[in-house]
């Protein structure tokens, strides 16, 4: 059965009480357009690990609540007017409601998780929320910095993006009280790599590369944020060259300021090549993970394998 993100709204009867004005509407608006990729990942993990449906619902809700809380706050910080093609919550309701709604989602996460009773899961989730906020904080501090390096951005993305992917693949094991350190090290590495690949692919959309979902072109750059591909392209350029590149208003300007479309394509090729190294590393850890699968769980490996195809290359696995 396919479950939409909206279905994750209520785990406990006390989630989203009827007496709070606007909150239900705000939630439905925000969640309606979401792909719910992270919840799907939880579902896939849960199905292969034979997680009970109630726990799987809790984990799915947790990750979507954390993710959407970060979006509510993020849009307000960035003053983004649109989210998933609709007016952002802070603009449609008020900044105060957007902040409170984000806080409410995080509070419900803690209420429901602690009610579940696995203290390690509660602790790990709190760590992830903390990482996410640290990442947001740091990302905000590099807005307008067009000389930031890819290594520096990776550190931010590890906190901001990869932490949630790590959670998706570690939390189901923690929920099953499987705490083997080596297993969790492997899962952490895999989650970090998936997060990095997802972020780098998402950053390529800004340059209309594999942009099937029609994301706004040069949106990051225009809002003063040099993303991972931007930083990769600018590496080795002079200050003057970078100044010109970041002033580009259209993709054609960008190509011209970089030295032509051929140079852009060459940089893209090199970027892809570098990320193939990450994919190789992911597959290496996947092989290591095999040793930790119980009988009947082996299928998980084959289901995790194509994630790099989906997340980085943005194509359905062949």
């Amino acid at each position, binding site marked *: 059965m396919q479950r939409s993100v909206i279905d994750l709204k209520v785990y406990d009867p006390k989630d989203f009480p009827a007496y709070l004005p606007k909150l239900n509407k705000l939630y439905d608006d925000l969640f309606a357009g979401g792909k719910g990729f992270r919840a799907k990942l939880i579902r896939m993990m849960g199905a292969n690990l034979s997680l009970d449906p109630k726990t799987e619902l809790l984990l799915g809700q947790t990750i979507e609540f954390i993710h959407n809380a970060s979006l509510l706050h993020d849009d307000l910080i960035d003053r983004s007017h649109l989210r998933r093609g609709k007016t952002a919550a802070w603009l449609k309701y008020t900044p105060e409601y957007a902040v409170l709604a984000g806080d409410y989602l995080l509070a419900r996460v803690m209420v429901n998780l602690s009610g579940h009773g696995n203290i390690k899961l509660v602790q790990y989730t709190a760590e992830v929320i903390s990482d996410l906020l640290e990442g947001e904080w740091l990302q905000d*501090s590099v807005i307008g910095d067009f000389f930031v390096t890819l*290594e520096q951005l990776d*550190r931010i993305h590890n906190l901001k993006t990869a932490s949630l992917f790590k959670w998706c693949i570690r939390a189901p094991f923690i929920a099953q009280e499987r705490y083997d350190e080596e297993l969790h*090290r492997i899962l952490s590495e895999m989650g970090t790599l998936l997060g990095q690949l997802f972020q780098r692919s998402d950053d390529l959309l800004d340059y209309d590369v594999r942009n099937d979902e029609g994301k706004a072109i040069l949106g990051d750059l225009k809002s003063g944020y040099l993303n991972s591909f931007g930083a990769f392209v600018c590496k080795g350029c002079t200050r003057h060259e970078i100044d010109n590149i970041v002033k580009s208003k259209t993709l054609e300007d960008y190509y011209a300021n970089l030295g032509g479309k051929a140079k852009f394509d060459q940089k893209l090729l090199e970027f892809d090549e570098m990320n193939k190294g990450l994919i190789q590393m992911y597959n*290496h850890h996947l092989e*290591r993970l095999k040793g930790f699968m119980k009988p009947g769980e082996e299928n998980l490996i084959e289901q995790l394998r194509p994630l790099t195809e989906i997340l980085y290359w943005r194509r359905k696995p062949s």
Partner: protein
Amino acid sequence: MSELVTLSKTAPEFESYLLGTFSKEKRALPLQTLNVNSASETVTFRVLPLKDILCPNPLTVCFMTFKVRSFLLVLTPLLLMLTKNIADGTLLDPLTSVIATVGVLLAFIAVNLRNDYMDHMKGVDRVLERSGSRAIQNGWVTAAQVKSYSSLFLALALLCSVPIVFAFPSVAVVIALSLVVGLWAQFKKQNSFKYQIGGELALFLMLGPLLTVGYQLAMGAHFDQESFWIGCVWGWLVLFIVHLRNFMNILPSAQAGFTNTVNWLGFDKSRRLIALWWVAFLAFNLCYHLLFAGSYWGIYLTGVLAFVSVNFIYKLKNLSSSVGSELRAVFRSGFALFLITIGLWVFECLWYLLD
């Protein structure tokens, strides 16, 4: 053809991969380190045949491995001490001076190599991308080779110390003190000595007063306050660069759990520490000149350095991120001050020598 190998600290081959002794035909380059410096540390290596290692020419490898650029850290105080003793007419034994200079350089290379080895084994250089010589991480040399070279250079340095100790026995006290401080810093905690609060003090002593006083004695001169002062001023300046470098790495080193003064104070207080450290350096330098050297030089140097400091202090004050490019700009600006100071001192030394 390369392959990936992941090993945790508990694996029996873990140390041999880090040391590079697991194979004679292959090198293991550390790609990713997780839970650094803990019992659950895990390292993923890319294992390559020796022929596939991208290696620059041997001279470059040598320069990089020995960190020739950092020789400035010992050559500068040696020049200051040499100038002082020539100017004062207290350089009594040129031969022991030459031997001491060679010995100090050999000891410095040994410490650099040992430091690179320790930082690689403990994970500091595997986590901080710009830390160390990168010779081990790039596969140009193995950690085991670096350790052996370090022992060789230390033995040569100790050999150099023998005739000096025979000529001037008081030098033995300084050498023994340096060894004690060095060993204490090395074994005090799990981390490299650069990455702990007490370690910074050790660095100050070894590159500062112990070096200048020892060199003074090795030249046949007596202990005096001036050599101690020169050591303290220089050691203070060295720590300025250490704090600045630690500040540049505040995020990754804090995440990895490395401790130092900068991490302990945090981003905002560290900014103030670095600014105050530099201002204090200007004051110490002025005091030294007023007490022991030409006061006109003291005023001139302080004036010039204060003037060129404005840009650095301004950048430091306006720094808003612990990850952005501004951080590197601040480091470059601070390092430029360090080099300008050395340049002015060299000019001052030439002035005294040619006077």
